[in-house]
């Protein structure tokens, strides 16, 4: 014990004596030093020859207009020793009018203590660098302001080689506040101010797949061509992926709203997460499955698939509560109208091992589809979205379908028409038997421009993009 005490004492004194927070501007990159909690108020770096005090760069003020221009250090702890820096003006112009104040600001109280006041610039000494040495001894957390003042004239204030005899104590990842000032209630390493679930150590962030409800519009006669009203099934969906502090998805909530069914077919709906093996999903809750269209594995995904397929409902008409005659619901303003039905799915993911990242379940891998009229092999996906293993591939290249799986081309006609479209926000859909181009007046321009024009075709941006009477 006696042997180790002097060594420990020496190490403590050494660390304390030499703790320095330094800014010599030699990064040449004000943005980098700002990221590390130096604040610049109308101050820049310069490497112009006659402005550099030492090395290749110094800090300079802008032109003087009466307002203070300052450089403020990060928070430092227990400053003790000599605060040193060098300063001068860039020219003699209005030298008598310039001043430099150095102030220590205490964290918490905001109390300010002037350490140095220099008002002795003259036309004769303005360009001679002053080596400042200021004794400082304080307990607590402080930051140092180096503040130039003046008015008019062309000369700039210059400063360089700042050395503060204190330990760097800012946290660049917490708005440059002093270290250990944030609260992390659940101890997951994410401060409460950033944590969407501050009381749950297993959860940290909401990551919405889509920030508002999106609409999915389907034609269900595939592989035959449809009537292009895209209302055989109309769904809104919104998916939130909740991640933990390691950026792995812990759970996802999916809201799926059946808005309209412009068909007599009993169509089901599911989505595949392309490339995600089914065992990465622990459980699925909230599915509305009454029949035998989908066979589930114990975790709620569809069985015998190589990627996770999550059935949502197996019959849109019965799910929305329609059992009447006719061909559909909520597609003809003079016909049947039923309140939309919302399914709420909760999907839990395996967080062990490599877990599931946001890239694994993203807007790229989300692959929604309908299953037509209880025929499990007859799926309708968005253009170029891969079918599931249960798809009847013999249907490709039949009737109106012009898919070319070898080229990754799926669910296209010979004119490259789709059977399904999704929009980035929730939109009104077409009334029965109305071509979508008659309701969305810029749709054709969008399509023939290859998507480069009118990418906002589904919004009513100018009030002239829609023909309201054709929409439901």
């Amino acid at each position, binding site marked *: 014990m006696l042997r180790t005490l002097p060594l420990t004492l020496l190490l403590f004194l050494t660390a304390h004596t030499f703790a320095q927070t330094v800014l010599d501007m030699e990064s040449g990159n004000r943005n980098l030093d700002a990221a*590390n909690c130096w604040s610049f108020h109308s101050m820049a770096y310069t490497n112009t020859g006659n402005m550099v005090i030492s090395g290749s760069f110094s800090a300079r003020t802008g032109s003087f207009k009466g307002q203070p221009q300052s450089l403020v250090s990060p928070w430092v702890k227990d400053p003790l020793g000599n605060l040193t820096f060098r300063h001068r003006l860039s020219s003699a112009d209005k030298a008598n009018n310039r001043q430099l104040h150095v102030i220590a600001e205490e964290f918490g109280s905001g109390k300010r203590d002037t350490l140095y006041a220099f008002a002795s610039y003259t036309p004769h000494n303005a360009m001679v660098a002053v080596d400042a040495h200021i004794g400082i001894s304080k307990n607590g957390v402080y930051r140092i302001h180096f503040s130039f003042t003046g008015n008019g004239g062309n000369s700039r204030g210059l400063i360089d080689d700042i050395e503060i005899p204190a330990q*760097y104590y800012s946290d660049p*990842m917490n708005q440059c506040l002093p270290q250990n000032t944030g609260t992390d209630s659940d101890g997951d390493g*994410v401060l409460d101010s950033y944590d969407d679930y501050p009381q749950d150590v297993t959860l940290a962030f909401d990551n919405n797949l889509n920030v508002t409800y999106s609409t999915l519009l389907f034609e269900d006669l595939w592989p035959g061509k449809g009537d292009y009203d895209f209302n055989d099934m109309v769904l809104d969906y919104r998916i939130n992926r909740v991640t933990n502090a390691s950026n792995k998805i812990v759970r996802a909530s999916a809201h799926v709203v059946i808005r309209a069914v412009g068909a007599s077919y009993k169509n089901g709906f599911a989505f595949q997460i392309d490339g995600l093996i089914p065992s990465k999903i622990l459980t699925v809750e909230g599915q509305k499955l009454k029949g035998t269209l989908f066979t589930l594995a114990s975790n709620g995904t569809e069985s015998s698939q190589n990627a996770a397929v999550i059935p949502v409902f197996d019959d849109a008409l019965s799910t929305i509560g329609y059992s009447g005659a006719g061909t559909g619901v909520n597609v003809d303003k003079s016909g049947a109208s039923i309140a939309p039905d919302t399914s709420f799915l909760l999907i839990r993911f395996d967080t062990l091992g490599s877990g599931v990242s946001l890239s694994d379940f993203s807007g790229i891998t989300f692959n929604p589809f309908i299953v037509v009229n209880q025929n499990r092999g007859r799926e309708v996906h968005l253009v170029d979205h891969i079918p599931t293993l249960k798809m009847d591939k013999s249907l490709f290249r039949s009737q109106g379908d012009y898919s070319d799986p070898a080229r990754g081309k799926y669910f296209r006609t010979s004119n490259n028409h789709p059977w399904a479209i999704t929009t*980035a926000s929730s939109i009104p859909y077409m009334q029965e038997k109305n071509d979508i181009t008659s309701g969305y007046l810029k749709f054709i321009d969008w*399509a*023939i421009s290859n998507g480069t024009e009118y*990418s906002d075709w589904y919004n009513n941006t100018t009030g002239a993009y829609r023909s309201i009477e054709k929409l439901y």
Partner: protein
Amino acid sequence: MRSILLPGIVLFLLTVSSCSKPGQKPDENSRPENFEDIEASDNFDWNTFKHVEVTLTGFPAQGPQNPGVLIIRDDQNRVVYKGTHTASETFTHKLSVPALLTAIRVQYGVTDKVIPIDHNTVNGSLLPQLPQVD
């Protein structure tokens, strides 16, 4: 004479044959009137979302080497990405955002800046962008 005519005929034929390729925007007279008449390109994906490759270079940070929280927002300030990230590492991620979005807002530490989307890519850094000084 023949040496002038032959290239002229070839040029004429090339011009005529290249007028109506699928995916090219026809002139107003041949604009489709309905969906059935649309001839789309086979590389048109009918997608109102786009996939944006985001690359943000990191920086050497002082202080505790805890990961910070990186937040990416859209033009209406809605969060499109939120996660922990270590300052010294380059952040890469593919975002799916509405095709009409032209820029993203990046927040990390003291950084809070808008970076444009250019050809479905965002290239930038995690450093702040301080205003110019005269």
